[in-house]
């Protein structure tokens, strides 16, 4: 079925479709970080192969970088060695590296859009599953493994079986207290953790169109939590306004030519999808996960579900296991659950807009005694822009830790972790067992709910605060 945004982007990147083999897709932008690349560079070197297009490759450090004490040597010797390996690999192959200390350093999925590198109609890959974020610009963007990283470095292409196309249409308007994070948690709940496997999702409808670029990135970011290969949103004036004037955005005549091209990147009205899901925006409320997959969420007005309320024995078993791990009793009101840690950051919700939303909630308030709260900006530039607005002082005066950019407690590789049994309200993307540290218990929420929860010490909406 042609005429879909996904087909249009796919077709323009087909290099060759050999008989009996999946087609080769050209890759416009390859983002590289320290954790999933060392074995790929080693593979290149063992085979004596160069990086084909270093200028289409950009590296940064994000996954295991420290977010405090940047003036000191990195304390973790394994992380230090991995980071120094990335420096050496980039130097050897002529790859631009936005290293720790640079204003351009940050989480790959924050810096790509920020630099204007992510543009409509492009293909973007990275050895990271949340590469789906870049689909917010109408790019086809997906995560790959390390062997594929090596393949892209060597050939600037990927061999890809064409995924199916799924449409997720969100009609109507989100309620005042409902954010893009709540929307995508609602979508993932509807899909289930594997409902999108084998598919690229196009998000459509009034509620999607109304989102800012930050909101669109939050939605596309979590496509993978529903199992989807990628998520995409057709570019429009919101996209073009965001892109205009950024460092790598086209300029002058090129900008006009690009705009003409980008405006064609929409799904034709007659196009059909392999799967079609519809969600009523008005039915959504702020979401809180209760389990150990991002699909296991309820609204903040709900109670922890009873495993017996699920349809299949497998779901019941999974729910029981999740509740045991999470230390929760069925029937407990979500608003009655106390938290130990609040984490605001990640490639899902670590952008300036996310920090502004949280700051508005915090203004004039204090973090609840006994709660540890930290803000980790998604990039060094987000940090600088937030500081220019005085947000750092606002957060620290309220009792938050104000950190430097990185993935931090989203995956707990850099020492920012939960202690066993600790419970977090986190603006990140995964609540898997041990994700934020062995034995840690993660509840995924929006930045507004995270901030209000930091103040109240239990799950709370900003509007509930006195």
């Amino acid at each position: 079925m042609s005429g879909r945004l996904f087909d249009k982007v796919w077709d323009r990147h087909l290099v060759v479709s050999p008989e009996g083999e999946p087609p080769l897709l050209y890759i416009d932008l390859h983002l590289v970080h320290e954790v999933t690349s060392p074995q790929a560079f080693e593979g290149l070197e063992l085979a004596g192969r160069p990086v084909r297009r270093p200028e289409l490759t950009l590296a940064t450090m994000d996954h295991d970088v420290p977010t405090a004490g940047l003036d000191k040597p990195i304390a973790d010797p394994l992380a230090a060695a991995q980071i120094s390996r990335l420096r050496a690999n980039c130097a050897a192959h002529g790859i631009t590296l936005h290293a720790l200390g640079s204003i351009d350093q940050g989480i790959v999925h924050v810096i790509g859009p920020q630099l204007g590198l992510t543009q409509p109609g492009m293909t973007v890959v990275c050895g990271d599953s949340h590469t789906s974020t870049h689909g917010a610009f109408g790019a086809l963007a997906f995560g790959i493994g390390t062997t594929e990283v090596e393949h892209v470095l060597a050939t600037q292409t990927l061999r890809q079986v064409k995924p199916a196309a799924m449409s997720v249409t969100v009609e109507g308007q989100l309620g005042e207290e409902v954010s893009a994070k709540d929307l995508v948690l609602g979508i993932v709940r509807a899909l289930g953790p594997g409902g999108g496997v084998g598919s690229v999702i196009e998000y459509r409808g009034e509620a999607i169109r109304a989102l800012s670029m930050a909101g669109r990135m939050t939605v596309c970011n979590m496509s993978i939590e529903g199992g989807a290969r990628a998520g995409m949103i057709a570019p429009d004036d919101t996209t073009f306004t965001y892109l205009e004037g950024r460092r790598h955005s086209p300029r002058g005549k090129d900008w006009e030519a690009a705009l003409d091209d980008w405006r064609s990147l929409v799904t034709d009205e007659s196009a059909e999808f392999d799967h079609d899901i519809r969600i009523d925006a008005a039915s959504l409320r702020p979401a809180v996960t209760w389990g150990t997959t991002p699909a296991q969420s309820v609204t903040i007005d709900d109670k922890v579900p009873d495993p017996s309320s699920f349809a299949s024995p497998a779901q019941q078993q999974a729910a029981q296991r999740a509740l045991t791990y999470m230390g929760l009793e069925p029937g407990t009101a979500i608003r009655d659950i106390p938290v130990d840690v609040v984490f605001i950051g990640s490639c899902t919700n670590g952008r300036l807009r996310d920090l502004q939303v949280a700051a508005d909630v915090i203004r004039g308030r204090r973090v609840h005694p006994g709660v540890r709260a930290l803000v980790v900006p998604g990039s060094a530039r987000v940090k600088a822009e937030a500081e220019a607005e005085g947000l750092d002082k606002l957060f620290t005066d309220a009792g938050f830790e104000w950190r430097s950019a990185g993935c931090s407690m989203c995956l707990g590789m850099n020492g920012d972790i939960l202690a066993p049994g600790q419970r977090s309200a986190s603006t990140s993307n995964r609540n898997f067992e041990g994700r934020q540290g062995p034995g840690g218990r993660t509840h995924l929420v929006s930045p507004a709910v995270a901030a209000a929860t930091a103040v109240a010490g239990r799950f709370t909406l900003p509007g509930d605060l006195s």
Partner: protein
Amino acid sequence: MTGVQRIAGRAVALQRDDVDTDQIIPAAWLKRVERTGFAPGLFGAWRDDPAFVLNRPGATGAKILVAGNNFGCGSSREHAVWALQDFGFAAVVSPGFADIFRGNAVSSGLVPAQAGAAAVARLFAALAADEEAEVVVDVAARTVAIPSAGIEEPFALPDFARWRLLEGLDDVALTLRHADAITAFEAGRPSWLPAQAPAQPAPR
């Protein structure tokens, strides 16, 4: 990478859906810069439970993991595949795999054998009755069998993936056969597309 035709050996039955790659290999292990040495981290947190299936004596030396649906969801870390291989697994049988995990498995030569849900249920039942039973994964025939239980089930594996696994092919070399097509494609890319300023590689 060497080719893999037929895998025969004991199996481990992991009867859970949605096993994510954070469970298969926890993030602390991702600081390694090698492709080997991950076996001690495989299912790191779950192995703290003495009753976990990987802790039963017969699990050591097992070659096949039979798992629930949506195996390998979450993070793109290929380390999950390397950890399974480092422990000794050569194939995973499941009703469904997450996309990135499936790709990584084929890339690294771990067979992702996708069998029907009913077929996998029969395998679980047979392994519950005899956990030492020999399981045979035949990549060429695309079947998984437990001969002692009289079970033989087909599994899905795309032709190209099957070929790569059988022959142990270097995927980059396969692609570089099309180097001329890649060069021709590059000549037609719009000039406005972003690129980094050219940097000179350091002398090697």
